[in-house]
């Protein structure tokens, strides 16, 4: 049993279920599954930045929003089709993520947190006040997508599943490559990393642009699934949701993020109607997990089943 619950078997089985079951699911379950895939993309991307590269930034929710706005606005304002505006939005988001990386080259720790927090507030303000472009607080509708003979919701689900699979596999390969080792070296000690001839600027830029790329893809898919884009989904609470997913799953663990995102989307849906309740729940989950389960749920899985080892050490919980 312990051997059967290894990563390879579990991932294969889960992948098969995600591929085969959706045509049987009701529309609401399909929608939740699709949202879960989007959050898996977001959490894995954020973990590359936070858990692996150790860069503490608050920009991910804003970048998620930029991805959604760019995908939607390119369609609505310029009349481009989704299949052009979506990749273009991903490129735009990645470039903005690179710009956010610029201060990270000079700053670290709390100062980086502050700059990115200011960047997040600034983005939120632009979404609300730059009405000539962003339609302001009311948001705007995005033209619905069609997928040939396939039902639109199902088509979008499979698109999300494909991209999610590719991006998770990409992250998994990245952390097993020299890039992953370099990111972890930067996280554990910048001075030591420099002494090993690791170019700090280059790897910080890689970490930021990778997480921005993931956020951009997630944002584009999110705008398509809601057919609507508005500022409030991309505020600081969104950031807390993503932090919770990464921490609950386990900092510095790709599969942990997959797990954490899947679990917490359920929590978010259960509390959909109560903004205050959601805030309390996610706040408690984040706090409780850091205090009582600092290595995340994945540490429990690793202890109980074989075959879940990951190549790189998780960040030190105690100093």
């Amino acid at each position, binding site marked *: 049993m312990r051997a059967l619950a290894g990563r390879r078997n579990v991932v294969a089985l889960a992948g098969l279920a995600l591929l085969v079951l959706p045509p049987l699911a009701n529309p609401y379950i399909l929608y939740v599954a699709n949202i879960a895939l989007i959050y898996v993309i977001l959490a894995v991307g954020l973990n590359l930045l936070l858990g692996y590269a150790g860069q503490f930034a608050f920009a991910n929710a804003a970048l998620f929003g930029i991805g959604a706005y760019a995908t939607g606005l390119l369609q609505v304002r310029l009349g481009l089709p989704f299949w052009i505006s979506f990749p273009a939005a991903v490129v735009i988001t990645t470039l903005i993520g690179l710009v956010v990386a610029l201060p990270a080259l000079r700053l670290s720790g709390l100062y980086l947190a502050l700059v990115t927090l200011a960047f997040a*507030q600034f983005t939120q303000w632009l979404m609300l006040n730059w009405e000539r472009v962003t339609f302001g607080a009311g948001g705007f509708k995005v033209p619905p997508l069609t997928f040939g003979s396939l039902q639109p919701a199902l088509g979008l689900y499979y698109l999300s599943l494909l991209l999610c699979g590719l991006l998770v596999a990409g992250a998994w390969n990245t952390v097993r490559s020299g890039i992953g080792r370099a990111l972890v070296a930067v996280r554990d000690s910048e001075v030591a990393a420099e002494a090993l001839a690791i170019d700090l600027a280059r790897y910080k830029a890689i970490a930021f642009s990778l997480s921005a790329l993931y956020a951009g893809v997630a944002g584009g898919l999110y705008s398509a699934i809601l057919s609507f884009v508005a500022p409030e989904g991309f505020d600081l*609470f969104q950031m807390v949701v993503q932090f919770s997913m990464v921490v609950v799953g386990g900092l510095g663990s790709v599969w942990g993020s997959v797990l954490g995102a899947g679990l917490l989307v359920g929590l978010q849906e259960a509390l959909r109607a109560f903004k205050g309740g959601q805030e309390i729940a996610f706040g408690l989950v984040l706090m409780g997990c850091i205090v009582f389960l600092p290595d995340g749920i994945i540490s429990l899985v690793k202890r109980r089943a074989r075959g879940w080892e990951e190549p790189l050490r998780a960040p030190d919980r105690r100093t």
Partner: protein
Amino acid sequence: MLPYLVVSGLTTGSLYALVAMGLVVVYKATTVVNFAHGELFMIGGFLAYTFHVLLKLGYLVSLVLAVAAALALGLVTERLAYRPLMRAPAISVVLAAVGFSFVLKGAARQIWGGLGDYMPFPPVVATPAITMGGLILVPQQLVVLAGALVCMGLFTAFFTSTRTGKMMQATAENAKAARLVGIRVDRVYAFTWGMGAATAAAAAVLMAPLTFVYPDVGSPLLVKAFGAAVLGGFGSLLGAVLGGFSIGLIENLAGGYINTSFTDISAFLVIMLVLIVRPTGFFGPRAVRRI
């Protein structure tokens, strides 16, 4: 227009300064930035609202009660989000505080949110604006400015003159040495968090009559106060005060001369620019690179 903008800039600036002082006090003692500080401010405002508007207590009584309650809440924050993580890396401490801040925000939304999104707070002095040689003065603003200055003075006096304040300074300087001379460092940490929360609540009670109280007031304020502290070189109380006044002035001037919608955003732009160009701030010593 300019004198009016300057006065109102100084008024909001004095509140940012007060909030920034709380941040710096906690940072100096514990080397942690309390990311729940904005929400402690928000809760302070709501407590004052409850005491003053709902329970119809006097303004000064409400101020004292709200500050005392916030002090207790600060102690709770320390117990829940800081003490268990004393040996954990900074990221964990900040994340726990962010989590706690959202618990407070959600709780405020559940408790007070039903009363309407923006709650008006009656002015402390109802006198109309006075004109003095072309200068329009709103008495309410002057009351707030004076109140904030008095609070700053009281807190500074507390840190420099009282026994507890000196213990806090000693702990901030060197926790190990402080423990060696018999200071109970754990208690000092707890009390520092309490004092930080108390300054935030004092600022909130002063601000409430000028603006509104609402559950989301905390996070933009945290960024501005944090920015004020950074402008002041993080770690000096005087620097935080000067930084707070600068941010208040910049905001109001940008709002008055460029566009009112710039009031909110100019502070964030300035913070981003300053941190990128001169991360050590303007009033503090140049930071030493730690390995």
